[in-house]
């Protein structure tokens, strides 16, 4: 009878989901390895087709969704394999007491977009006048349309943030500390963009000096700074929803804001310079976030230890 009870308890313990806090360092390394294999495996399989400049076909659409959701697949499969579950509660929005974080998830991307607009206008020599045919109305319409698009982007970016902010950064922080997690996480996130960087010349264009290696290196730097900002939002709200909102606004409204003072003729052949402007804006915004995060959350971790 006792052995039966013992057997039942062992079985039950095997089935029970672990808390992420209970995981040992070895297990975290294994988890990270599995996560990276799945995420990069899917991205490198489907990403080349997904971001190609050919006409949008049904298969390309499938590839796009597979690539965009590869971090989420990695996270879900890894958590399932290691019986971790989602007990860390980061998928649920916690509005009470976290209003500042949610507000910043809108404010930061707006600052980022405006900084981009100013820097691009200076670097390309476009000046601070609106070049659109219908003036301010066209800019406002573009921002409005992109803000509608933001809701659709929110759906797609769950796929990314579920893997990065809700899994990778947390695990890396346990291994390497806050600073290490931001650097290594940013590099991994940047490397994940290799297919669009090579196929579509994402952000820096195909005419960049030292293409594609320069593009990959610069993307890693960009992802480190942007990752710091998004990770701060994740920590301020204790939820992954705020980084998803911020990421969606960056990918939609910030882009519309950034192209406020430019036209197609002005940017012709200047993709690399524009990419550098975006990189600088990201660094200017990301660095204070990183310092603030280190001061506020780095010490707490040390105290806990």
């Amino acid at each position, binding site marked *: 009878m006792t052995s039966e009870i013992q057997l039942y308890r062992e079985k039950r313990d095997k089935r029970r989901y672990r808390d992420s806090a209970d995981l040992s360092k070895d297990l975290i390394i294994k988890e990270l390895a599995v996560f990276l294999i799945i995420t990069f495996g899917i991205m490198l399989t489907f990403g080349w087709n997904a971001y190609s400049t050919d006409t*949008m076909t*049904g*298969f390309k*659409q499938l590839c796009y969704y597979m690539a965009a959701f590869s971090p989420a697949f990695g996270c879900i499969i890894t958590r399932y394999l290691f019986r971790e579950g989602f007990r860390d509660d980061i998928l*649920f929005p916690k509005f009470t007491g976290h209003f500042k974080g949610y507000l910043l998830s809108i404010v930061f991307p707006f600052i980022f977009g405006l900084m981009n607009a100013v820097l691009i206008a200076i670097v390309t020599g476009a000046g601070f006048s609106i070049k659109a045919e219908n003036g301010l109305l066209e800019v*406002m*319409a573009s921002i409005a*349309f992109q803000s509608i698009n933001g809701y659709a982007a929110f759906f797609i970016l769950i796929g990314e943030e579920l893997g990065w902010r809700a899994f990778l950064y947390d695990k890396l922080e346990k291994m390497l500390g806050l600073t290490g997690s931001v650097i290594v996480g940013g590099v991994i996130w940047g490397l994940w963009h290799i297919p669009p960087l090579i196929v579509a010349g994402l952000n820096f264009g195909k005419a960049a000096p030292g293409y594609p290696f320069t593009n990959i290196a610069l993307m890693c730097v960009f992802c480190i700074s942007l990752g710091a900002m998004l990770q701060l939002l994740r920590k301020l709200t204790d939820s992954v929803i705020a980084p998803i909102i911020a990421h969606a606004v960056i990918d939609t409204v910030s882009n519309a804001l950034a192209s406020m003072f430019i036209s197609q003729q002005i940017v012709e052949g200047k993709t690399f310079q524009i990419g550098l402007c975006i990189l600088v804006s990201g660094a200017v915004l990301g660095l204070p976030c990183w310092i603030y995060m280190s001061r506020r959350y780095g010490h707490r971790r040390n105290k806990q230890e």
Partner: protein
Amino acid sequence: MRGLIYKDFYLIKSKLLMSIVSILFDTALLFVILNIIKLDYITKTKGADYLSVMLFFIEIFVVIAVWNTNYANIMKLDNSRQWGFYGISSPVTEKGIVAARYFTIFILLYLTYVICVIFDVVFGLVCGTAMNMSFFILFILFFNALKASIEMPLAFRFGQDKSTLIRILITTIIVIIILIYLLFGNIDWIMADGGTLKTLLRLIVDGDLAAGTLAKEMERFLQRLTMVNYIETAVVMHLIVFGYYISYRISCRVFKKGVMRDDI
């Protein structure tokens, strides 16, 4: 809060699964019929527009089957005083209960959208051209969210049955106002040559929906949208999101009164 969301979904699990299975079955059946009448022939002669029209109607059916049906089921849950007392006395408090219900509704909306995107991908694979009808469905889901944000505080305050009656009353008043406007107002934007109603009438008179007229009309309609229309649409959509939050705040305030009401 998480436990309450699990509970809501657990209680409607079988109904939710049934609605998803019924959609899959209907779509599979449709494909079988289309294959019998030669899908290749249709796509070659009529083009991908034909399938995009079909996809649009299927996705509307998805909204009805997954969202509308299960939304009604969720709203019927826990409509008793005993549960209300239990909920208030539990550590989650009334705010937690209301937040869980609003989050459940949001997850259901999201699930509906995900299913529509999956349908987009499957149809895109079948006909070879990428399809994005889910973007239109997003607008429909936003208006469903608006409907939910009006109905939910009423349901928390007066109970599901009375809230349905109030909703019917509100709908009737709105319909009467629209009728008065249509009879006595300026309706050039609907009845003029490029107006919405004329477009619909043309579709019915032409009677050639299968040739993808609807898709072409939708495309033409989108092209006709002015910049002001984009700004208006964005403002309306953001207001709906804000309205959903305001609705949550109102529901939190009226929840206790709803539990203490005399008719239960």
